[in-house]
């Protein structure tokens, strides 16, 4: 029987594939690589493309990765796939958005603070009304 290696394809949100394989093709940043068992240890980035897994029954399975990392060990291959499209400027934009949200909602939050104050005032008013009611009751009885 031909030699196999263990292949894991995982993303942060789910495990995508796990099982033995004869050969794996992956889109590394420096060019596509084909990996067979007992490959020398290698760590590389992936670019968007297709990961092809040749299973022991010679059937092929395809997975699309938008980018990620590839770890190769003699006994197996691990693809750490990104779930989102990653690029420096996209990340930068997302970071900016997060900052803006923190600042923007500060303005909106004024309502929240007002709300809290209104709530406190309401509680006070209710307490006052209750006291007045109690006094009236007493006077009525007396």
């Amino acid at each position, binding site marked *: 029987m031909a030699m196999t290696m263990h292949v*894991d394809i995982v993303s*942060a949100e789910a495990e995508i594939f796990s099982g033995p394989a004869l050969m794996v093709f992956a889109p590394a940043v420096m060019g596509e690589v084909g990996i067979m068992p007992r490959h020398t240890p*290698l760590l*590389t980035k992936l670019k968007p493309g297709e990961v092809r897994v040749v299973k022991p029954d010679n059937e092929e399975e395809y997975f699309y990765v938008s980018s990620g990392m590839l770890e190769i060990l003699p006994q197996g291959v691990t693809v750490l796939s990104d*779930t989102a499209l990653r690029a420096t400027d996209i990340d930068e934009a997302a970071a900016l958005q997060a900052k803006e949200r923190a600042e923007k909602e500060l303005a909106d939050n004024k309502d*929240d603070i007002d709300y809290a104050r209104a709530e406190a005032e309401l509680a006070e008013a209710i307490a006052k009304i209750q006291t007045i009611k109690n006094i009236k009751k007493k006077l009525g009885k007396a």
Partner: protein
Amino acid sequence: MAVGKEIRNQIRSVKNTQKITRAMEMVAASKMRKAQDRMAASRPYSEKIRNVIAHLAHAHPEYRHSYMKDRDVKRVGFIIVSTDRGLCGGLNANMFRRTLRNLREWNEQGAGIDLCTIGSKGYSFFRRLGSNVVAHTSHLGDAPRVEDLIGTVKVMLEAFDEGKIDRLYVVYNKFVNTMTQDPQTVQLLPIEKDENVELEHHWDYIYEPEAKEVLTDLLTRYIESLVYQAAVENTACEQAARMVAMKAASDNAGDMIDDLALAYNKARQAAITQELSEIVSGAAAV
């Protein structure tokens, strides 16, 4: 019969409330199960990365990425994962109380604090306190996506790169079981080296491109995956806490309905007795 109309109305409104809380309980139960699955599904990724990082740290003892270097703490960053919605018992309140104590300790040591909030409850709470919230994300829904967290995490990582913060923590609720959720504070940066892992072999990877670039990417993803896990775990906690809270509410509504029914029956009986005695005494008078 006019007796006990108010009580009847009240019983009806309590019953309606009970219907709602029951429905919410069941919805939370099914969402919790899904959230737990998601929790399990996210584990292999961070485990794999942790292995690679542990290996890297061993293969290059002389090379230390800035994310792995300990430095004097002048300012601390916290990523606080909370829920978007309430009605989940004391889940958020417990965590905030624990966090506040933690923040106060840092303050006493003279360290400044930057916060990054995920979830609107945490945002409004720490805003009201006047804390310095530098980044915020909310409305992640029941299935948070890594995509939605990248931005907020990046703000904190950049702050760390620029030396604005010297340490980064993530605060979230750990899902112990349905009844128990445990607020946790986990250190993200600098990454604590796992001393227990003693690797036997001495070999190194070939890096494509350079080791440093690969390592930076890897560490960023690692931090992101930890924050993602925290978010997913917190959703599971939210649903579990909501389920328990809504179950208690339904039970309380049941008790209240029983009490009201008893009061209603008593009032009805009293009215009947009174009417009877009136008739009897009327007949006796004739």
